[in-house]
């Protein structure tokens, strides 16, 4: 196999990985703090994509328009996160995991159909912002600028996320909530606000990744349930609740998928789920997480 071909595969895997990281980081944060597996995270991602498309229809197709659409979509989904957390989720915190899981699943059903009702079932697409529309030559391959942008954006978000969690007062509160909610509550911190904030931020990230994926993938009903399982795999590989773990989990997932197709075509789908199962069996807390 030519090195340029392998490089192409590698870059493709990396792009997938960084998208998945953007999506899965929010999922992982919510799990880490609230101990909830949010099935609706994929729905937030889907809504982000649709909202971005909607805003693009209203504004001129320009680079500025695209950034505006992405930001508006992410903020819109973040706001939805606040509403859902305040109205419903809050009353489920003391309940069994089953009820929390089922609540997020109810959201999947409702949001999926709502999107179908509003935007229909046809494929929609958004073109890349003109600034990032071209491609560059690297090692004898053409790499789309937009992919490179995502590959740079992923680590940037990971870095600032890490900075936010480990070097700020808010981050310290969030980490404290991860460790012992009752204690933090007893010490007088406003745990409720932290929870709302985390849920909203997680939804914001999902919405943002949904908006940013639109130039690469078409927007279709069902993208929510397809992506959520992939996000689960990534979060499980890295370790549920571990931020850097999610980052490296995404990288591993992307490469396994990308090169798995070359080695065993038809088995890449199998291999990623098998990887998820093996990690849960051998190290349930993931490659980079800590045992609970």
């Amino acid at each position, binding site marked *: 196999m030519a090195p340029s071909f392998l490089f192409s595969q590698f870059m493709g895997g990396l792009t997938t990985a960084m998208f998945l990281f953007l999506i899965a980081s929010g999922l992982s944060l919510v799990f880490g703090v609230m*101990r909830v597996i949010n099935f609706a995270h994929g729905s937030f991602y889907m809504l982000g994509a649709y909202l971005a498309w909607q805003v693009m229809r209203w504004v001129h197709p320009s680079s500025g328009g695209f950034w505006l659409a992405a930001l508006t979509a992410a903020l819109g989904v973040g706001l939805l996160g606040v509403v859902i957390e305040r109205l419903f989720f809050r009353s489920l915190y003391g309940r069994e995991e*089953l*009820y929390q899981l089922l609540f997020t699943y109810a959201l999947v059903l*409702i949001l999926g*159909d709502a999107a*179908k*009702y509003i935007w229909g079932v046809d494929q929609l697409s958004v073109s890349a912002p003109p600034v990032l529309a071209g491609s560059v030559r690297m090692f004898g391959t053409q790499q789309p600028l937009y992919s490179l942008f995502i590959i740079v954006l992923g680590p940037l978000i990971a870095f600032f996320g890490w900075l936010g969690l480990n070097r700020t007062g808010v981050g310290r509160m969030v980490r404290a909530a991860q460790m012992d909610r009752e204690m933090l509550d007893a010490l007088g911190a406003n745990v409720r606000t932290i929870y709302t904030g985390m849920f909203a931020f997680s939804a914001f990230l999902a919405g943002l990744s949904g908006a940013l994926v639109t130039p690469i993938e078409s927007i279709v009903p069902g993208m929510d349930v397809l992506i959520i399982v992939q996000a689960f795999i990534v979060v*499980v590989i890295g370790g549920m609740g571990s931020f850097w773990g999610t980052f490296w989990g995404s990288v591993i997932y992307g490469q396994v998928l990308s090169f798995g197709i070359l080695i065993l075509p038809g088995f890449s789908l199998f291999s990623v*789920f098998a990887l998820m199962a093996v990690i*849960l069996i051998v190290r349930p807390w993931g490659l980079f997480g800590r045992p609970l």
Partner: protein
Amino acid sequence: MTASRRVPWTLIVFVVLATVPWVGSRYDTFLAAQIVIDALFAVSLNLLLGTTGLVSFGHVAYFGVGAYVCGILMKTYGVPFVLAFPAAGLGAALFALISGYFCVRLIKLYFAMLTLAFSQIVWAIAYKWNDVTGGDQGLPEIPYPNLDWINALPGCGDLRISDKFYLLTLALVAISLAVLHRIVRSPFGRMLTTIRDNPERAAFIGVNVRAYQLAAFVVAGAFAGAAGALYGIFSRGVFADYVFWSKSAEVIIMAILGGMDFFWGPPVGALVIVWLNQKITAYTEYWPFVLGAILLVLLFALPGGIVGGVHALWTRLRGRGRA
């Protein structure tokens, strides 16, 4: 309780269900068959969910293994149903034994995630292994078993083959439910409930918690496989879609809607979901929205499910009558 012991309600329900091919339309029989199969599937899940307190998000894997084993044996190899049906249950039980061995070592959300992973592995295999499972095309046109012997029964001579298969399904589900009922009420079943309520205490009094959970997992898998085998023949084909993870969520909803604290809760849930699905999809495509709304009502207003709600109402009325 005394009232239900005097009137054999379950027997009456099954006798009424058995008359559907004669008194109802072809469509009624179709609905009844689906309800009966889903009822078995939901009860098998509830052995884990309600009785043992294990939240499996991948129960559809065993349903799927059963459907594929039976379908492949009957269609590809021409094996008769008498052998293919038990093979489906055994195949699902075997897979449940292997996957369950690992699953019961994990707790709560990790358990749910691993069951989900195993079910997606089954889905990936079903979806991609074209030579055996038919891949994304699935296995259409699975033959009906030979049911000519039913003609010998009085009044059954001029039934359609689908009606005859419905009667066979009903009989097999009735037997399966009776066995499951015995299991839940046995000392083994009581121990499962003890483990659900307090696993530490169960372990402390010398119970091998994991072995019990694994046994429950295998039994639940076997009966899910039996339900899957019946479903494959009933719907005239087995497709990879049957095994996608969202189906596991659907059967959980059936169990919860009926009431997971009661043996007959999940069948009630299956009845309501299948019936509502048929009624609602007749005039809107937004069935998932309705299902989501039902789920919200259930979670916030009726956590005990339908049977749980009726039971609570009944005890309250009786208490008032006595006072």
